[in-house]
């Protein structure tokens, strides 16, 4: 079951990645007239400090599902690591692996448990968005608090999702 789920999410993930990668490249074009070489690796789109719908949704979902352990805005807490820092180290696959399967670090001096979200539909369905948001935070592109959203008509991600 878990394997099935993972595959499903992986597929979803790839689809989402392609989508935002395209969007992202498009955004870069708009901004400075040429696509930056690393544009394809950015799962988010930012124009004039405003983020696409996916990244924005990622913020909402992060604050709903992850804040109670990782603290506000991915900034870390007395309980769990700052994901803003983690994503400088973890790639997309490693990130997904920890969230789907969880991780335990329990010893006499530590009781650190990252829950497995593989069965939590609401989290899995929004995981790519959560990743996009955290990546944008980690890259220093998005600050603390609720990010400003691109107007709908300028947001290819929003349009894409409306259609599908």
């Amino acid at each position: 079951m878990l394997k099935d789920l993972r595959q499903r999410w992986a597929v979803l993930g790839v689809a989402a990645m392609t989508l935002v990668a395209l969007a992202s490249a498009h955004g870069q074009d708009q901004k400075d007239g040429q696509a930056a070489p690393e544009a394809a690796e950015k799962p988010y789109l930012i124009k004039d400090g405003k983020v696409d719908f996916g990244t924005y949704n990622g913020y909402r979902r992060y604050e709903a599902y992850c804040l109670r352990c990782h603290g506000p805005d991915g900034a870390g807490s007395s309980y769990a690591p700052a994901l803003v820092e983690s994503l400088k180290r973890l790639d997309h696959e490693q990130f997904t692996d920890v969230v789907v399967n969880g991780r335990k670090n329990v010893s006499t001096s530590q009781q650190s448990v990252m829950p497995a979200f593989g069965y939590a539909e609401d989290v899995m369905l929004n995981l790519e968005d959560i990743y996009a948001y955290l990546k944008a935070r980690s890259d220093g592109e998005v600050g603390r608090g609720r990010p400003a959203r691109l107007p709908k008509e300028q947001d290819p991600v929003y349009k894409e999702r409306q259609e599908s």
Partner: protein
Amino acid sequence: MQKSVLLAGVAAIGMMAASLSAQANDELVQMQQNKSDWVMPLGNYSSTRYSELDQINKDNVKDLRVAWTFSTGVLRGHEGGPLVIGDTMYVHTPFPNIVYALDLNDNGRIIWKYEPKQDPDTIPVMCCDTVNRGVAYGNGMIFLHQADTTLVALDAKTGEVKWTAVNGDPKKGETGTSAPMVIKDKVLIGISGGEFGVQGHLSAYNISDGKLAWRGYSTGPDDQTLMDPEKTTHLGQPVGKDSGTATWEGDQWKIGGGTTWGWMSYDPELNLVYYGTGNPSTWNPVQRPGDNRWSMTIFARDADTGMAKWVYQMTPHDEWDFDGVNEMILADKEIGGQQRKVLVHFDRNGFGYTLDRVTGELLVAEKFDPAVNWATEVDKTTGRPKVVDQFSTHHQGEDVNTTGICPAALGTKDQQPAAYSPKSGLFYVPTNHVCMDYEPFAVSYTAGQPYVGATLSMYPAPGGDHLGNFIAWDAAEGKIVWSNPEPFSVWSGALATAGDVVFYGTLEGYLKAVDAADGKELYSFKTPSGIIGNVNTYEHGGKQYVAVLSGVGGWAGIGLAAGLTEDTAGLGAVGAYKALSSYTNLGGQLTVFTLP
């Protein structure tokens, strides 16, 4: 002094022997009179956290110094505080929920240690950190509610397990964080898990064998809520048939929350136990139309049968996560020229309530932080808050971000208990001064998965550079008498004493002593970690001691560790913009103070 302690000791032994046959209730009513001890987490059945001890007073408290310290060996957030019974101190920890019995005759040498083996999968279903708010004493036993909801009775002398009972199921998100209370021949305990859609309840187990004696749910039909449609009242009116399902849509009450993770109080004369219930699940109000009774409610139940005598719902149809679980302080006060037996409660929603605890009549309901804005006032007849549309997350709707709501979800005050001094007549209240944006959205329920349904962001209340206040409150008038700003939320339980000193801890780790009359700071000492524990006092060998657990964490540690807003330290910002993590670090430690 020595002599009176000796006498008290002899009396205590006599009493212990007698209690073998007599009811534990009598034992505890007697024991709480003995000012040398600290027999229950909130000091006494009235939850005043007041001590008659006066050796440490407002003139000499400046000379306080550390007598001894003890590391709990656990890093997570340490809420609650130790009990002191005779020569023994009982200290508990967050998960893995160790209990230590320490020998006060031997600088805290460990007499016994109990450490349960619990499934680590319990850890992530605990809401916010793996806290535990303390143990209870009764009939020669120490009672602990473990994270995995096992209620365990330990022999107070040896730590040997006498019996265990299972109070819930962590796989459904039910966990144990609160402290039990022993009343007569029963031990009462609540349940945590409001963010997982559990059906909250208060349960009573026989002290003799751990069998369930009664269980009163917060929501459900009358046979589950233990309500009598005619005799149980809400503000003087009968509640009517199945009031615990009538204001819910369909079966939503089954996953309706109303958890009971706060504190209990008990009036032996009225034989009533008082406690509050938590938020209705989910946090998205649009998804659960109706008043959602009896979440967010003060309950008065018969301690023998569990039958509800009266209830009062403070926040009908919650839209902000203002759990009603904070402590109920029982006092006798003159209100409007009339002597009353009252219950005083400082709610998360920012109102300080004074009720007649015999009848449940609402006498006073006033804001204990001027920043509170989600309601203008509370209607004394209907008991309903007058909600401001602008701050109503239901009115604004799903997927709309309602901004500028004060207080934030952590409340003007969370579980950290206040103190009441009958000497000064004032209540001493640790508070938060934080506001929020709140955006509800649709969620589906899966057993054992978070059932939250809202995104929120928190920030300092407007115009301020501080996140907390420590205040003195007049419960007859409903007025703040004095207020000390604190850089961070005050998340430590207060202690008032006959020495005219009030103690509390801060998130940076300071233990502070202030003048009960005007709040002037008289002493402060920085302990190794932030304080979210409750300050206690006791007397041993003729000396008064003050004890507190350090160990930053809990909701406070999660919310504030990294600060609430962009780090603008470089711009010279202070107070609220600073991260708690730049002041303190994890680590459970007990610090015991005394005079030289």
